[in-house]
């Protein structure tokens, strides 16, 4: 607790006795301190005034916060763009945005349309471009075309790879010997394609076991897909210099494709700040609390991207909380929350009406009419908001018989 010069015991006692949260109490102390102290009576009045305003800003009990949140996210949906266009910029990754992305998040799709990661680096990796590149090479899937030229020698039935020495040294920064790298590459090819290779310096040659034109072309096709270094799912990594809040600059990697669990293991990656736009990957690697946070961040980013930054986060929190309420990620809709509701009528009223009714009959289900939709259907007041309170008014005295 910070000490204030002009805040005496009385003021403190009065403030601490109020319902104010800590941050408001501190603010009261600070302000009072600025004014050079106040009398107990004044403090009492100040605290009362602040407290009454604070209580005013609390949610009202029985507020239908769910519906309000749903509307607050759904309504701006009409203002979002449908198609996703590329950025005009250079070092950018194409990501799904706007309404399709929002739908994707709420659907809790297993893989997003455009998987992507934001990889933060630690220590010297974050400031040194060379070191940052080391991380890039261990993440980005390196295919043969990036390493050298591939040519097919039809006459000898051979595939020839002419490796580029500079690239090799760049991509394998820990090894100085080009020969060794080339040998490793040759080994990878042998393992992946099941062929014998011959290597002279940085030129690797191989061919089909029996001369076959088709097989030769097939080998080239397969060769193109072989991953020599990095993570297979990540096809492209963009490196960008970004400014931190404290004014310092650091390198941040953006990847096309995601493999969250694998990337967290790589040396130089700051696992505490690295994120991924696949909420299921986050759930698998970091747990449901992180997934909740990821849904909030992703939805907020999607809305902000569309210039709808004024949507209150609390709405997004509520959506995220209900999606993760049972400990796993559930989608919003037929296969998730709406489909697993307790009430038969509520489920029937949403989608696949008939099946829900037939299943209910088999299981001998009983609809207790707790929820909103059920009560609308049977024509009773809903148990939310003003429908959740019972008011009884004694308009007749009990002795007087009513007619």
């Amino acid at each position, binding site marked *: 607790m910070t000490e204030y010069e002009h805040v005496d015991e009385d003021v403190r006692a009065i403030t601490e006795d109020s319902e104010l949260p800590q941050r408001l109490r501190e603010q009261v102390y600070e302000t009072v301190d600025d004014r050079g102290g106040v009398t107990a009576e004044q403090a009492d009045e100040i605290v009362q005034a602040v407290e009454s305003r604070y209580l005013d800003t609390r949610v009202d009990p029985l507020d239908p916060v769910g*519906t309000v949140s749903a509307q607050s996210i759904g309504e701006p949906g009409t203002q979002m763009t449908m198609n996703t266009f590329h950025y005009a910029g250079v070092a950018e990754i194409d990501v799904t945005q706007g309404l399709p992305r929002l739908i994707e998040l709420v659907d809790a799709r297993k893989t997003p349309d455009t998987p992507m990661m934001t990889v933060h680096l630690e220590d010297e990796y974050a400031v040194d471009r060379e070191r940052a590149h080391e991380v890039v090479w261990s993440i980005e899937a390196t295919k043969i075309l990036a390493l050298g030229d591939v040519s097919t020698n039809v006459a000898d039935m051979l595939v020839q790879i002419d490796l580029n020495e500079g690239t090799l040294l760049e991509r394998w920064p820990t090894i100085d010997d080009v020969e060794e790298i080339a040998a490793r590459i040759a080994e990878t090819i042998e393992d992946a394609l099941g062929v014998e290779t011959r290597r002279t310096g940085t030129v690797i040659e191989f061919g089909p076991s029996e001369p076959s034109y088709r097989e030769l072309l097939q080998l080239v096709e397969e060769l193109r897909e072989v991953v020599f270094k990095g993570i297979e799912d990540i096809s492209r990594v963009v490196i960008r210099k970004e400014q931190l809040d404290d004014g310092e600059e650091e390198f941040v990697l953006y990847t096309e494709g995601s493999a969250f669990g694998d990337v967290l293991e790589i040396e130089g990656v700051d696992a505490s700040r690295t994120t991924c736009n696949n909420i299921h990957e986050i759930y698998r690697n970091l747990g449901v609390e992180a997934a909740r946070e990821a849904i909030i961040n992703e939805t907020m980013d999607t809305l902000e991207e569309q210039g709808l930054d004024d949507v209150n986060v609390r709405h997004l929190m509520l959506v995220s909380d209900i999606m993760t309420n049972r400990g796993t990620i559930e989608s919003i809709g037929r296969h998730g929350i709406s489909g697993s509701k307790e009430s038969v009528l509520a489920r029937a009223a949403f989608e696949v009406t008939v099946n829900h009714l037939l299943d209910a009959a088999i299981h001998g289900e009983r609809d207790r009419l707790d929820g909103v939709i059920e009560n609308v259907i049977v024509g009773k007041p809903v148990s939310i908001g003003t429908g959740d309170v019972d008011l009884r008014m004694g308009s007749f005295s009990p002795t007087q018989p009513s007619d």
Partner: protein
Amino acid sequence: MSLNTPKEIGGIQFGLMDPETYRDMSATKVITADTYDDDGYPIDMGLMDPRLGVIDPGLECRTCGQHSGSCNGHFGHIELAAPVIHVGFTKLIRRLLRSTCRECGRIALTAEEKAQFQENLQRAIDLDEDENDVLKAAVRQARKASQCPHCGAKQHDIKHEKPTTYYEVQDVLAGDYSERVAEAMQPDPDDSEDEGTSPQALADETGIELDRINDILSAEFRPTTEARKSLEKALGVDLTEEDMNKLMPSDIRDWFEDIPDEDIEVLGIDPGRSRPEWMILTVLPVPPVTARPSITLDNGQRSEDDLTHKLVDIIRINQRFMENREAGAPQLIIEDLWELLQYHVTTFVDNEISGTPPARHRSGRPLKTLSQRLKGKEGRFRGSLSGKRVNFSARTVISPDPTLSLNEVGVPERVAREMTQTLNVTERNLETAQQYVSNGPEGHPGANYVRRPDGRRLKVTEKNCEELATKIEAGWEVNRHLVDGDIVIFNRQPSLHRMSIMAHEVVVMPYKTFRLNTTVCPPYNADFDGDEMNMHALQNEEARAEARVLMRVQEQILSPRFGENIIGAIQDHISGTYLLTHENPRFTETQALDLLRATSVDELPDPDGEEDGKPFWTGRTVFSELLPDDLTLSFTSSTGDAVTIEDGQLVEGTIDEDAVGAFGGEIVDTITKVYSKTRARVFVNEVASLAMRAIMHFGFSLGIDDESIPDEANEMVDEAITNAHERIQELITTYEADELDSLPGRTVDETLEMKIMQTLGKARDSAGEIAEDHFADDNPAVIMARSGARGSMLNLTQMAGCVGQQAVRGERINRGYEDRTLSHYKPNDLSAEAHGFVENSYRGGLTPREFFFHAMGGREGLVDTAVRTSKSGYLQRRLINALSELEAQYDGTVRDTSDTIVQFEYGEDGTSPVKVSSSEEHGIDVDNIVDRVLESEFENETEKERFLGREEPPTNLSEYAGPGLNKAQGTGVQSDD
């Protein structure tokens, strides 16, 4: 009058129904397929039997004695000649057949397995997990058993042919077994060493006698199962073929009857409610006539409901079936009829089964049978139960009326005469009530009906109104017309948020449109280009009270989406306040009073100075008259200058969108949160009035000449565009010379496109800048764009400078002909004009080719909007469905209706999104509060008490009530209170 205790539905129990129960509840057995006889009377025991309920007015129900309208109808039944399968349960039937024993009916699980699954099931239910997973696992396990663990009977595989046929698959000896054996005994022609198998060798190997082998080879003896197996083993051949034994519904029913109650529990069936054999129908319930009313066409012909048609089919086939069976028809014919009966019952339940041709009406339209009635948007659940048609509602075109308060709605007299409110007559309002009645249904405000204390309802007519009026006394009810001050609900679709449905106070008006204050357009998202809106008159006191307290427009000024005001000045209001305050013009006394005459301010403050011997008032002073006296505020306006308000005086700055606009105008927002919603309503109303006066004072119009720029500016624009063309040509030359360096991660083609786009974008911007520089500050289009009233600088530069690049799918236009966009260009032309760059301005006019490209871009926008509305509509429906149950509780938690906690504290801190802007943390100005307390400048005790929150200001419920705001008394707001 008997006192009927109102009943309430406590719950709904689902289950299957026992055929015996059907028969018991049935009002009659239906045996005749005909509906009406020649005289038009329903036939006894026919589908329209009067015991099933009545639809014709005047007739009496033979079961309950009530008339149409009060009789809900009664079920009948058809005794089916043979059992048929209910299509809805085909999957479950298959599951049951596969998992139970064909002999003893017990589930093919051992006692331990059964207990295990039962435990799993219970746990799934307790943990609120999906029970289906457990059930499926149980079936899978039971299906594995080839022998019943209870009676040891052999189990066969069940084949299900959709929709309703089941076969038992058995491996039996193939018909051509002798050929197969003989063939296998022949020597292999490819293998010279193979000499084949002699009958003797075979006999030795299998242990079957030689004679038997010979008999088998000559197909005179069918080998037993063991013999078959040893033969198969010895010869390495398959001697079996699949035999499909069709299971008739009656067989299945017998099978299911044997399943004991405790076994079906493992399969998730509640034995107390549903027996599996009930899934095979032996009796078909006939829905009451009220559920399938026939309609009389104009020519007097009756047209029957789809369900009736289907029932007719069922009865016909049912009868033919019975006749044929009694006549001893061959099995084949019986089976055909059975299948036909099954088809009709299937389509009666569901007419959209895949693999089954839908039953059709004579016209070829597929029939709408039971399932189709429930399903989908227009189905029973979504169309008739979740949403209903209502009385006391009205819909018409809306039009603006700036003289109304934002809490009000102008209601056409014709509408007011139809919508009524119930007035309970007491001694005190007797005269008013009589007046209403004597005005009759045509006069306004009149009455349409009265209700005597005995419950009898009388229609008020022009003829009887005078007479009725004299009879009225306390205890009667009068359904009077809507009058000024009544509360109604007003709505514009699509109802995307809660501000789409708000309560307004009625002002009855002539003509035929609903009238709205223009400041409520943003929450409804309404305009006046032909929009229609709906009105609902409330029918009980509780609803009216809730509407007043919670739903009135002024209660909805703050949007829960972003926590700022959504109601405020729009469009011309903003231009008006801008003109009034931007250059702070001076007004004479007459002018100043004229500006304020639509507000409640009727006295001018001290003049700001004198000019030519006459006092003058500045625009800012005039505006300040509307502000609360002690308002102190400073912010930056959208025009860009600093706005300072001190003690209710606008000291400097321009009042524009950021100050008074809808969507977060600072002043409106502050007044709503710090003062009261009533004060905010008064403020918004008066700002709108003042702004309209101001804009009329200055005059404001926009013509085509306002978008023209001088010739030299045009030349500069042309030059900028020519420059861009040149640069693009350079780019293309480098590209064609293969010298263009690609950007990292992009191909050369992409790089070129990107660079061209950038250059053209810059060209448009510089054209815009040139145009902007040549616009005068008093240009109306500029005023609108700067103040935020309407339009943007981009719109303006497109009108005056250059429209710019047209895009489809985020790229330059590339589609059309092969290698070119239009036949006007050479193939592979990469230039700007060939790919949709519009270098002209809207004012200057587009060339035909530019126009075409512009239309391409425009079309994409239209398609996008159409797709978007349906997608986002569905998203919203799903969100609302998933979250509708959540409610904040007294303890601060958020729970659903079954009390599951979703959040321990709403939004992690319990702050309401309505009362605090989404950009603020808590919105409490501690500094200001401390200042006020220390200065202790309160006019009286009440003000202080209110400031400290010890006392609440009285709730305002009407435009006509409330301290200092009483419209009825004409006092209006005291702006200096």
